[in-house]
């Protein structure tokens, strides 16, 4: 009998670890989705765009799983203190990461809508390549923060998000410039696309900030989502 509570505790710890694994796995999925969506934009690749659109369901399924696990933990284990914060932050995180998947999906849909025409004029393509690179790195780092609760890695996300904001602002400068020759249509597409990348980054940062809150008890900045 003496060992029984100990065994219970282990099963409980396993459940918490499994919840973190599902969330981190979601981050990996949406990082891959953004990488593919960005390539579909840059390389005008309809097949890749379709793949992102079809695969989004996997992220939604992982979210459902994370939420079921979070509910089971709350209902059956009634966690307290740090563990309770972990479960609540997982509920928030699952929502944020699912939204990141939706934003990658929106990018892929823009590529599909204009196909076989490219969405991006050549002079803005490099900025989107960079926004894609930064966005994917943010999602992968969020996965690391979820798995390891590494606060130094969490701080990196803040710097990456600043880089994304700079790129986002710069896109507007390009669009508003007198030398913009591509007219209103592409400008409207690019405005929304740049916004999708920027929001993707915001959600990754929100995920990471919630983990920092779990570890330190203090929220490192506003949850801008």
């Amino acid at each position, binding site marked *: 009998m003496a060992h029984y509570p100990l065994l219970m505790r282990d099963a409980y710890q396993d459940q918490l670890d499994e919840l973190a694994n599902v969330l981190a796995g979601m981050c990996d999925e949406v990082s891959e989705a953004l990488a593919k969506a960005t390539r579909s934009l840059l390389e005008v690749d309809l097949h890749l765009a379709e793949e992102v659109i079809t695969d989004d369901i996997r992220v939604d399924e992982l979210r459902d799983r994370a939420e079921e696990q*979070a*509910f089971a933990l*709350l*209902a059956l284990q*009634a966690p*307290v203190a740090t563990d*309770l*914060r972990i479960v*609540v932050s997982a*509920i*928030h995180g699952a*929502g944020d990461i699912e939204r990141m998947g939706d934003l990658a999906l929106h990018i892929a849909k823009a590529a599909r809508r204009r196909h076989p025409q490219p969405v991006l004029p050549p002079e803005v393509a490099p900025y989107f390549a960079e926004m894609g690179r930064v966005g994917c790195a943010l999602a992968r780092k969020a996965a690391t923060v979820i798995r390891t609760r590494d606060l130094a890695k969490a701080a990196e996300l803040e710097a990456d998000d600043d880089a994304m904001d700079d790129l986002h602002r710069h896109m*507007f400068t390009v*669009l*508003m410039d007198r030398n*913009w020759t591509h*007219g*209103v*249509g592409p*400008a*409207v597409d690019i*405005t*929304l696309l740049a*916004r999708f990348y920027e929001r993707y980054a915001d959600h990754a940062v929100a995920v990471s900030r919630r983990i920092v809150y779990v570890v330190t008890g203090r929220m490192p900045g506003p949850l*801008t*989502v």
Partner: protein
Amino acid sequence: MATDPLPTQLADLARLLSQMGTAAAAALQHATTALLDCRERLAQQVIAGDAAVDALRARVEEISTDALLFHAPVAGDLRTVVASIRAAGDLERMGDLALHVAQVAERGRTLPAEVRGDFAEMGRVAVAMARKAAEVAGSRNVVLATELNADDDAMDELHAHMFTVLMDPTWAHGVGTAVDLTLLARYYERFADHAVLVAREMVYAVTGEEPDTIRL
């Protein structure tokens, strides 16, 4: 200090969420007026007022966490607490989106005559949706929640129409205006999406089912 009993906490959560919805509706209504009538002072008031919505959200999270910690609710009560945490996030975001509209108004952007009617209508639909979401959150009126889906379809049509206007070859207001209007239309559309999500959360709390799977 002893924590409140669970029924008191659940009633507090419903009241706070309803307040958040009412505040978000008022913020977007004022932001839209500021945008249509170029009232920069009114826009500044909306921007300053957003902190109040953020504070309500923090309060919802506190009460929810206390409820989980001290009462370990199960079944419908657990769903209500979790739904409240999520809905508070959506309502806070609605406040942020109203703030974004106000920020555009504050910069003194004048709407071209041919889109004024569309933005007035997007404002009207979105504000009505926020008020309904507030009522659903306060009263758990699941039937009213289903109305929001029809409202959201109306918003999507308005949003799609804006792009037709902007992409039209006769568009005479330049790229800068088109960029601002693209984002503005997006803010209204997202505001409406979050109002739908709030109602869905409440339906889920009451019934334990996602709204898609229930026949009302």
